[in-house]
């Protein structure tokens, strides 16, 4: 009677690495099993089972972000074929809310990690900058499938936003100066004043089951 935790040390290791509590890891593990259909790894197709995700216009980018080796901290390039539970938790940890007991340096590091995750979503060819092409692709995806919106409008929206970004990062440009693309430093600069941390986290409810024996 009663199921004792089968691998407490492993779970503790995961908790230390990703910052989740034991209960959150347990719940996420159950969710992982649901998504993977009780397999040990998930592939891109497994995310097709989530109806709520279908609504999301940047669905493919989000799913891709799970397999991006840069986010998984395995390599600086490429996509993984499948990910296991530890990788799943690593990606989820980008969306953890800021802890109360973090100091300045930790907060800054955390913020940078979150922005890096977002940067990787845009920078699909992995050259370290968001070029106009990549930006346009994201805009098109966000606005795609709307029959009333033509490709031209989507393009000009992207171009306009890119101009804004250029003016923030580089300042006034010469008439024939070419703006290569938004590097990560520029990206950070754009978000300097703004508190994105509250926008980019998923709040876990604090729950503990009634029966709990330590």
């Amino acid at each position, binding site marked *: *009677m*009663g*199921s*004792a935790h089968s691998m407490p040390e492993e779970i503790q290791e995961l908790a230390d690495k990703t910052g989740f509590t034991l209960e959150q890891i347990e*719940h996420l593990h159950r*969710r992982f099993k*649901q998504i993977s259909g009780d397999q040990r790894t998930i592939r891109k197709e497994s995310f097709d089972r*989530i*109806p*709520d995700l*279908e*609504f*999301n*216009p*940047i669905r493919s*980018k*989000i799913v891709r*972000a799970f397999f991006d080796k840069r986010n998984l901290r395995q390599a600086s390039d490429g996509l993984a074929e499948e990910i296991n539970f530890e990788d799943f938790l690593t990606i*989820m940890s980008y969306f953890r809310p800021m802890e109360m007991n973090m100091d300045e340096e930790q907060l800054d590091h955390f913020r940078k990690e979150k922005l890096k995750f*977002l940067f990787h979503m*845009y920078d699909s060819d992995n050259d370290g900058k968001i*070029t*106009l*092409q990549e930006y346009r692709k994201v*805009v098109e995806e*966000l*606005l*795609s*499938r*709307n029959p*009333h*919106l033509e490709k031209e*409008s989507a393009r*000009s929206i*992207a*171009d*306009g*936003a890119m*101009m*804004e970004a250029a003016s923030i990062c580089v300042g006034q440009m010469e008439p024939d100066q070419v*703006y*290569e*693309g938004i590097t990560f430093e520029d*990206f950070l600069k*754009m978000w300097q004043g*703004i508190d*994105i941390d509250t*926008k*980019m*986290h998923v*709040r*876990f*409810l604090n*729950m*503990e*089951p*009634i*029966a*709990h*024996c330590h």
Partner: protein
Amino acid sequence: MEDLIFAAAKVMSVWLTVVFTLIVLPSVFGASLGISELYMRILVKTLEWATIRIQKGVKQEQAMALKNSASSGIIQRDETTMEKEIAGLHRVDFELSDVFYFSKKGIEAIVEDEVTQRFSSEELVSWNLLTRTNVNFQYISLRLTVVWVLGVLIRYCLLLPLRVTLAAIGIVSMIVGTTLVGQLPNSNAKDWLSELVHLTCSRILVRALSGTITYHNKENRPQKGGICVANHTSPIDVLILTNDGCYAMVGQAHGGLMGLIQRSTVKACPHVWFERSEMKDRHLVTKRLREHIADKNKLPILIFPEGTCINNTSVMMFKKGSFEIGGTIYPVAIKYDPQFGDAFWNSSKYDIVSYLLRIMTSWAIVCNVWYMPPMVREEGEDAVQFANRVKSAIARQGGLTELSWDGGLKRAKVKDTFKEQQQKNYSKMIVGNGSTGNPTMGAE
């Protein structure tokens, strides 16, 4: 050797006699000897004791109420609408920032979504001494373990054989009874006899599951010539409802034992069984059902518009087909109490036989049935709106959440039309702001 067989035969006959007098005979008259009430009282006391023991084993600060999170999930979803959130982030018209909103929503959906959790069994607030629901709960004390072992013995060695016997008796008597009644010429006597046979067999089968059903508002019970509509959790729903009244059932013709039951019952009472090929033709189905309800002498039709089994925490989209037939709709809400046994049939996880075994080794099936006042389609209301109206009424009465997702998502994917809606909303916002940028850019 012969003595052994003799002794076994004696035991069997005693057993059968006991079963007959105490259970089968009273079912014929719809009476109850109070044995199951006693059993339920003992069961409730035991479970209460177990819960208190479990709670005592926990430190005071940690005993938080789990009720909220068990039903609403593990994350707190941000309810700000797309418009507000994006407006707050805007420095220029179109921004990298919009990706924030969507990526957060995406991750929230991945961590937990409203639909997938409806297709797995409901989580319990506290353990009910069944191993299968033991997800979070750990070893507490020796006494609890002993009670649990006792529970296992009672359930598997005492209740299971009893229930299997009853189920067998119930099914056999239904087949035999309805075939016999079916031989009679059509008359009032035949109808009365067929009702009696159906009711008796239903009662036997419900007792085979240790079902404790409370019917509310019996004055609203479905009348002849109407359509009865209910939320669907398991194949047992049919038994729950026929325990209290007679219905004409609608469904696909199966083979095997189920087919045998279908063929014999249709002789006694005009159920509507469709061949698989006929089911595809919606007009044919609608026509036959219309003919059925047009005859005011025929029993009310029983339909489950969700089309699939949901886990009894919510009501999903009602398919509009049943609401196009016309006639009076009698909604019925069925809510099971998961503490005593999980009635939900997860057809992708268990087949029907393992499902029935699980049901028969649970403590009991306890449920509440609410009969609701009849509803008719109003002027200017189309079938879909009517279906949604009935669905809301059932959800409210049964205390279930209401979802507009299709139960078919259990197996299929979301239709593209739904995806496009969100994208249309978003692009309307962007284009509406009138952002037209300067097309001359360097990096190409």
